[in-house]
């Protein structure tokens, strides 16, 4: 058993499941928004769509999914390439910094997204 405290759910199985679930949600959102755009939109209909609560919930769900998905994915990338085994202690410092930076970016996106969804 290998321990890891920086992975999202601290369990490989949980991370794996969240990666799949979030991917399905993002795919559904992407297909939906693409269909809406292909159907033709103007400012009024777009604003009308995003003023409905279900659309805001769906959008927030997609946004949170993106955050989770990116966290799991980037965590795997960072723990592949920025490691103590490859770079010594520098690897640990770099990896922690990279994880912190990506967490901050995702947090910012989520809060900013909420502001956009409910702010207009």
């Amino acid at each position: 058993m290998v321990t890891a405290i920086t992975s999202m759910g601290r369990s490989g199985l949980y991370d794996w499941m969240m990666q799949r679930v979030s991917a399905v949600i993002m795919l559904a959102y992407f297909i939906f928004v693409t269909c809406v755009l292909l159907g033709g939109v103007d400012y009024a209909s777009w604003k009308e769509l995003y003023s409905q609560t279900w659309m805001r919930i769906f959008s927030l769900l997609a946004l949170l999914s993106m955050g989770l998905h990116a966290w799991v994915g980037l965590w795997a990338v960072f723990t592949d390439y920025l490691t103590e085994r490859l770079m010594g202690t520098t690897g640990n410092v770099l990896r922690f910094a990279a994880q912190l930076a990506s967490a901050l970016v995702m947090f910012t996106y989520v809060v900013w997204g909420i502001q956009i969804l409910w702010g207009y």
Partner: protein
Amino acid sequence: MLQVSIYRYNPETDAEPYMQDVQVDTGGKDLMVLDVLELIKSQDTSVTYRRSCREGVCGSDGINMNGKNGLACITPLSETVRNNKLVLRPLPGLPVVRDLVVDMSMFYTQYEKVQPYLQNDSPAPAIERLQSPEDREKLDGLYECILCACCSTSCPSFWWNPDRFIGPAGLLQAYRFLADSRDTATEERLAKLDDPFSVFRCHGIQNCVNVCPKGLNPTRAIGHIRNMLLSRAT
């Protein structure tokens, strides 16, 4: 004449590894790569590699031939040589001891972790632990592994995390015992694998399936382990 480029490194005399070009007269025959190595060694006895059975059973001569891992003894030149050129390198990702010989310690450490032996604390029957033909069939495609390390050393996840990711060979063996009806340590085995690295570092790119000289499918076994972990936890 076959143009062979072979990886050379003797840590006692060489500052760093280099590629040596050798011309080999194959006599127009479709030899196995191991035969070519033997011909090279007859000219230069310092060329070092592992070999034993020369028929794909012992798993000693796993090397990288023109970029693809495989057993030198059962890989015919016609299968690997392109434009009359053959590049021979040691298995990637493991420390090189000398020339084509790699240090397999990390590979064996991961193999050891999955406790590759039958565990059953109930008193052993007088003759043997019986198994139905159906249960025995579940082990087909799992028990045939010869531990040549071609799969694990072709896996990028194993290159980056050989200390934490079990690797395709080890996981195939892990599933071999998880699937065995006579083994009673299933729960303990699964508990040891349920972390973000041991199993879940596999991203399913199937390099292991692509190179296995015995035609086994570690990716499928890893999928079975994941499903067992999933049904245990939900």
